[in-house]
């Protein structure tokens, strides 16, 4: 079965590996398991998996270094798994090129959803040129890239140029968490990456334009301490 997708699981805890194997195999993925960072690097080089699920707390090396090494040449999705309290490590991993994260303990549903989102993004990134896409659809939100228009339920939303750039960036990465640093860098430029407070107020204003109830948002979700995510329905 050559067309089954191959996932490399890098995790040092056997029970978690066991449960990952069980749940991923039932979903039709092929699994490769390693428990060390070095093995992860060598196995990735020899098998070139379609995705890597990487625990940040590894016995032999820092998960962050694994990502940095891999990202020299490897472009398929990496999902990191971290314990609560490792917020900083999580953000660093995302900034270093990880695609998404899961916080222990996590449910299978959450895991599979993240895997699906990550695969979809890697497919769109490979198969289609972004410039050819003229419209992005998220639920009842439409982002028309050719005439720079955002509508919700068919109603036009008035956005400032900066807000528009933010929405486009989030919509292109729908379902994926974007860190404060990435958002600031891509929308405001590399000089502004420390102005997270600025970003927060922008997001709050944007939420007022996109959401019916900003306190219980449908689209624009906050990942506290990490960044923002536009839901992917």
């Amino acid at each position: 079965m050559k067309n089954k997708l191959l996932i490399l699981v890098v995790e040092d805890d056997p029970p978690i590996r066991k449960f990952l194997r069980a749940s991923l195999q039932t979903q039709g993925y092929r699994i490769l398991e390693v428990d060390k960072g070095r093995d992860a690097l060598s196995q990735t080089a020899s098998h070139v998996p379609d995705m890597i699920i990487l625990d940040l707390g590894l016995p032999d090396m820092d998960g962050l270094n694994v990502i940095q090494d891999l990202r020299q040449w490897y472009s398929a999705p990496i999902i990191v798994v971290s314990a609560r309290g490792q917020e900083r490590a999580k953000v660093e991993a995302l900034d270093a090129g990880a695609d998404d994260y899961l916080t222990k303990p996590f449910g299978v549903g959450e895991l599979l959803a993240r895997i699906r989102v990550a695969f979809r993004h890697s497919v769109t990134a490979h198969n289609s040129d972004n410039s050819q896409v003229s419209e992005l659809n998220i639920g009842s939100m439409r982002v028309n890239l050719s005439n720079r228009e955002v509508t919700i339920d068919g109603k036009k939303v008035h956005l400032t140029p900066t807000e528009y750039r933010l929405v486009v960036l989030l919509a292109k990465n729908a379902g994926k968490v974007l860190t404060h640093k990435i958002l600031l860098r891509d929308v405001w430029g590399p000089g502004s990456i420390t102005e997270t407070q600025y970003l927060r107020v922008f997001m709050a204003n944007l939420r007022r334009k996109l959401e019916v109830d900003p306190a219980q948002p449908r689209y624009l979700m906050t990942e506290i301490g990490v960044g923002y995510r536009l839901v992917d329905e």
Partner: protein
Amino acid sequence: MISGKERLLVCVGSAPTSERVIMTGASMAKALSADWVALHVEQTGNPQTTMMEDGRLRQHLLLAEDLGADVEVVKGKTIAEEIIRYAQEKNINRIVIGRRQYGRESFLRVSPEDTVDRLLACTLFLDIYVVPDDRENFENIEQRVTKPISQLRPATIRSSLLGLLIMAAVNILGLVFYATGFSEANIIMIFILGVLLISVIGGRWLGLAASAISVLAFNFLFTDPRFTLDVNDRQYLITFPVMLVVALVSSELTARVKHEASQSAIREQRTAILYQASQRLLRATGQSSVVTTALEHLRGLVHRSAVCYLPAVHSDKDLHRIGFGGDEAELLIDPSEVDTAHWVFKNLQPAGRGTNNSTHVAGYYIPLISQEKVLGVLGVNCESEPLDREQRSLVESVAAQLALALDRERLTREQETMRVEMEREKLQSNLLRSMSHDLRTPLTAISGAGSTLLESETKIGSKTRKELLKGILNETDWLTRLVENLLSLTRVEGGSLSVQREWEVVEEVIASVVGRLRNRSSEHKIRIDLPQEPLLAFMDASLIQQVLTNIIDNAVTYTVKGSQIVVRASNDDKAVFIEVEDNGPGIPKEAKNRVFERFFTVGAHREVDRRGMGLGLAICKSIVEAHNGKISVRDAPGGGSIFRILLPSPETQLRNSVALAVE
């Protein structure tokens, strides 16, 4: 009291000879490998010393100290007596003293007899080494040249003029008396009164001059033949000398009383300041306030800026510095100054200007020692000039007081750490006890369900199976929340370093908490009330999330299905408020004060399927207090309770950021 080492007493004065005496004393001490004391006797009746003499004395004492002597200054009437008394007291039997062949002051001295002669006369048991003076003549010339200049201070001119006025008044009054026919005795009394007054105002020298002038004036104006300095009556040959002696003695006495009075006034003032300093040091709490108080007083006493070095909190090697006295203090931040302070801290010896260690620096540094432990270093700015003997002893007494106060602070701190440590240990053991108890319940449930599923795989229906699996998930949920609470607790207990505050949008924090609790609270109605504009608060978002999670979770746990929970946020100039209101049964009055205590649970809720460790709200309190905020609970108007969190805001940043983001 008898130490094995021999001791040598070296007498030091302001005379230029003293330098040689000190050198001789030092080399003798070395040869005898003896300790030596440099003693200066400050004569209570001594004529006011000139600035030059003062300076020389200071140099001598510093020199002696540099050469390893213990410097002592005593006060007394006659030098010889004090020396003998001191030697007897300290059990010293070798004395080194300089001798002046003849001196400028010798004939003015109350006791004209030479000190050395007196010493020799008084003692049979002392070995006295006399160092002759061979530079006397040369020095004397120098003195004569310099003295008048140094004496011509404005005050002297003013008092001289006043003296002249008094003299004139006395003469006029005398003439009036004479015209009225009063006896000569009265006129003489008037003259002596004048001399007394002048001595009070102008001191010894003016008094002497006035004595002479008054005799001459009396002779000139009132004795036959008048208006000449001749006398007819032989009686006056007695009157004049007696009058002169009376005038001299009274002016001398007055001047001495005056000098002593001013000396004791200065001493009294200093004692008062020292006393005040010690009082304020007693009252001061906290290391930095103790140090600032001491430095402030030091400035009052010696008019210098000063610095204090104390060991840094987290390491024994580094010192951190507290300065006082404005810009001048900044001069002592030169690396060589700092190095000197560190050297003093390590070697427990004074250093800097006026000592024989690190003399190139501008500060004078002494260690602060209490109970043989070094607690810091005190540095005084001596850039303009070195401290004189008196100032140095003042600095030393302030240093001693400061060391005592710091020691007291250290003890208080140690006690406090011990208390906190004990409390922490108590808390930890309580925590462990209740954790092991509370963990057992969900673990039993999980392992029970797991083993049932495993062993009776085929015998149980799919419905039971599903229930058991759900039970496992619920229990792990509860365990997860417990672990998260404990994690927050360790972060808050870890102190301010682990609480990382940033400006956060309140609605994002509330939304993420409510989103996460949605599964558990699906049968409750949660409403969120927010102000129109985005509200920013300065907080550690993950910790405040924990607070809100605990409070909302409690509200869900302790109210029946279908109850309403309202989460509200608002603000004023000084703070942001987040409130969680429920319409449940409320909290009993007696429990309301205790809900934030550790291990407190409201007992009567067994029908609710969840037990609590009584940690949730206590953790909320710790977290909010780590934000300098407040947490409180009150009754809701329609029953139920309202939990309120107050987060203070450093407002300027808040305003700026909002203004920035409005495009």
